[in-house]
Structures are given as C-alpha cells and as structure tokens.
C-alpha cells in the first residue's frame, strides 16, 4: 500500500481538526513556558491550509509533493512566530523529496528526514533542547528503523516515537526558543511544539486508509 496525494489531503484535514481540538491545550502549554500562542498559531495556520486545499482542486496527476508545498507556503504565510517558519520549512523540504504520485515506505522515511532537516537547518536546535526537534528526531529515527514495514507501520512508528519524545521534554531545561528565557523554570512542562508534532504525526497515520 502506497500513499498518494489524497492521503496527504486527508492528513491535512485531520491534522486541522486535531489541532483545533488541541488548540487550548497547546496554548496552555505555551502559556506555562512561552507566550501562550502556539495553539492559536497552528489553528490559524491549519485552518488556512484546509481552506487553501479546498480552493485548489486536485489534478488527476497530483503529487504528494504538490500538496505538501501548498501546505508549506500556507503555513509560512499564516502561522508566524517560531513555529511558522519551522513547520513551513519542514513541509517545504518534505515536498522536495516527495514529488511523485505514490510514496512507498522508503519515501515516507525520506519525507520525515527531510522535514527534520528543514527544522534543524532553520532553528539550529539539537535533541535535548526542549523543542519540536525532540519529537521529530525520534520520529525520523523510528521510521528509519521500521523500514521493513508498510507505509502505515512506518508512520505509526514515527508517531509513537514523536509522542514519547514530546512526553520526554517535560523534565528538560529549554535552551532554544522562547522557553529558554525561563532557564531552570522551564523544567516540568511539556514543550508545546513537540506536542503539536506528535499530534500532526498521529493524524498522518489516521489518514492512511485501511487496505
């Protein structure tokens, strides 16, 4: 079973719904150690993504990359803050390596790795700095380790790892992003960007149609 542009579109619809549900929770996480806007930022961005996709009819030969590129530019121009360019770049890089109609497991792994690279290229964060990288890095690693599985299994491994990675940010002291200003006081709170990453990847799995 391969993933196509329709999957990418379903992914975005489900991501928007899940992020809308999580809006207040994400904002509350950001209120604890940031500036109380992460949920609001992503909700604004992903609502715009859905609107944009709905306004852009899918050509028959639509590639996954074409969808992801639309997502990237929309996030870039509607989210703002730190997460806007980071998620924007993630989708932009992912789009570059998915310029085809169907993604097989290696392509899904490439997608996740490209996204991670985009985020670190822009934000210069490494694992352990209490950022979304703490969800993306284990996700990409877990995907690579699951390369024997189906596309769904690869994505599911990534989503589980992202979820664990997000949880693991709780005790960390932030050294990147806005939470870093809090120093020691940032410990004890989950990083909002890592949590939103976990939500995003969970919807990527949910959007895979059962065979």
């Amino acid at each position, binding site marked *: 079973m391969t993933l196509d542009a329709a999957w990418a579109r379903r992914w975005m619809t489900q991501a928007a719904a899940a992020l809308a549900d999580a809006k207040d929770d994400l904002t509350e996480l950001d209120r604890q150690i940031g*500036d109380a*806007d992460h949920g*609001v*930022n992503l909700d604004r961005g992903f609502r715009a993504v859905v609107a944009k996709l709905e306004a852009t009819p899918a050509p028959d030969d639509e590639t996954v990359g074409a969808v992801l590129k639309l997502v990237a530019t929309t996030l*870039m121009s509607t989210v703002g803050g730190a997460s806007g360019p980071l998620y924007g770049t993630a989708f932009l890089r992912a789009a570059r390596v998915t310029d085809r109609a169907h993604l097989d497991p290696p392509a899904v792994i490439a997608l996740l790795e490209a996204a991670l690279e985009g985020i670190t290229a822009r934000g210069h964060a490494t694992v352990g700095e209490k950022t979304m990288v703490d969800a993306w890095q284990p996700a990409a690693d877990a995907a690579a380790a699951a390369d024997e599985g189906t596309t769904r299994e690869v994505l599911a491994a990534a989503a589980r790892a992202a979820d664990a990675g997000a949880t693991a940010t709780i005790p960390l002291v932030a050294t990147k992003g806005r939470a870093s200003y809090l120093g020691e*006081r940032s410990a004890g709170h989950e990083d909002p960007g890592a949590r939103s990453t976990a939500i995003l990847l969970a919807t990527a799995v949910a959007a895979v149609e059962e065979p």
Partner: protein
Amino acid sequence: MKKLLDNPDQAVDDSLTGFAAAHAGLVEVHGLHGAGPVYVTRAGGAVAGKVGLVSGGGSGHEPLHAGFVGDGMLDAAVPGAVFTSPTPDQITPAIQAADAGRGVLAIVKNYTGDVLNFETAVELAEAEDVQVATVVVNDDVAVEDSTWTAGRRGVAGTVMVEKIAGAAAARGDDLAAVAAVAQKVIANVRTMGVALAACTVPHVGKPSFDLADDEIEIGIGIHGEPGRHRVPMAPAAQITELLLEPVVADLGVGAGDTVLLFVNGMGGTPLSELYVVYGRAHALLAQRGVTVARSLVGNYVTSLEMQGASITVLRLDDELEQLWDAPVRTAALHW
C-alpha cells in the same frame, strides 16, 4: 478579561484601522480587512535618496513599531498577530515598499520567530533585487547565559535603535553606515524589566502567567512570558535598583559616562509611577557619577495592559546624542 475590542481575531485589524484613520497624513496601512498581507508604510511611500528602515514583530507592543513610522524613524512596520512574529509574505512587501534604491535596513528584535521570519523575508526581497542589511536588537540583560538560550531578547532598547538609525538614514548615510550606527546603539543599550501583574492575550482570555498578590516577576520579556525569577513585592526604590543594577553592570557605565535613561511602561502602569522609577534611577546614576543627558519616560514598548516597567540605559557619545536629538515626526515620537 475585559477589553475594548469586538472580536479577538479582528482586534489587530480593527486597531490598525483606527490607527490609519487617526494618522492619515502620516501613515498608510496596507492589507486591511483581508485585502492582503498587512504592513504599514509612510503615507508618501519611500523617500527618494534615503536608505529605508523596516521593523516589525508581534502586535501588542503598541506604539512599537507602527507608531514609529514617519520622518526621521521607520519607513515601514510589520505587525504580526498579538505576540506572534509577522510572516514573510508581510515583511517582504514592506521591505520592498521601503526601498528607494539605496537599500533597506531591517531591525529585528531577537526572538526565534522574528529572526526566522525576517530571514526568509529578506531572502525573498533580495531575490527581488532589494539590498537588505539586518541588525538584531538584543538589549535584555535578564537573559543571563545567552549561550544557553536563544540569546538575549530585543526589548525597549529597540526604540533607541529605530530612532537613531532613522536619523542616520535621514541625514543621508548609506546602508552600511546606517547599519553601523544601529549596531553601535545595540552595542551600547541594555534593558531590564519587571511585571507587577501579567497581561491577558485576547484569544487566550486568561493572564499569561500567575503572580501572587505579594510577588513580582523580575526579568520579564515583552510577550507576557514569565520572567527569570520572582521576588516579593518591594518599594519602588528597591525595584529600581534590582532593574538598574544589572543594566549598569552589563553595560559597564560609570563615572564620567553620559547616558540616555529610558523608563518604559508595560501598558498598565500609570505615568506617575514611571516618573517615580525615573527619579530613583536618575538619582542612582548621578550617585555613580553618570550624567543623564537625555531621557524618555512613557509607554513605548508595551505588553498589552501588563502592569510593570523596564529601565533602559543607552551610553551616549556626541554622534548618538545628535542623532537622538534630530527631528522625528511619527505618531508616537515627535520633536
């Protein structure tokens, strides 16, 4: 939460609509009511023969930045959502609009979001053949170990950077020279802030942090983010020392130095209290043999209705003093 607004989603747009109407001869606000990317320029557009100045950042810090658009200061300002950096598609056209052929200086406050969005926007503007230099303001001494953080934040000292770089551009300096003056201000300006009560972001609806009745938060930023540590509520004289001490120490000003002293209100603190702090800070500097040659007191870089203040010290030399004194005609600074 009680606020004078209609709908949190529209608040920035509604506020800019009022701003545009109130200062029609001075500024033009682009993209209102969903017409396109939102940014603010001078009413007349870019000034021929002058380097352009652009700044921007999240809204909620009014009058920063739009209130500083006009003669002798900024050519364009880019407001994001409340406390959220604007996006490249807003910043790039603002940079283009500010360009009169001599290039544009982008003044960015040091926040990951601002830096990243400006970075992208500058790339896009350069692709359209605009020459752009960027300076990053990072005056907040509350951020101690800046190697272990995203670096010092840009806060109230931004006003000094925008005013003085604006004056350098107005006197005809080229882009490199304007950027150098801006860097000189950045090298010589430091700030530290305190919150007595947090602010409430409209679409969040509850205070950005919780502070007990007898606590204050020292070393806050301007985004309603919590500060570095909490101390018990104290008299103004003591709070002034807590803020001024690290500023003076970090800047290394002492006897014989001449400075500008800026006491900035966070939005919900009455002017009378800002003057109390100013008086204390002025006296403390005088005690150390520092000459306070220029001053500014008021709400210039705010955090919505946050109760609190920051103290900024800028070390002056003749050039900076002259550029500070140069005429300025904007909605919020005017002389």
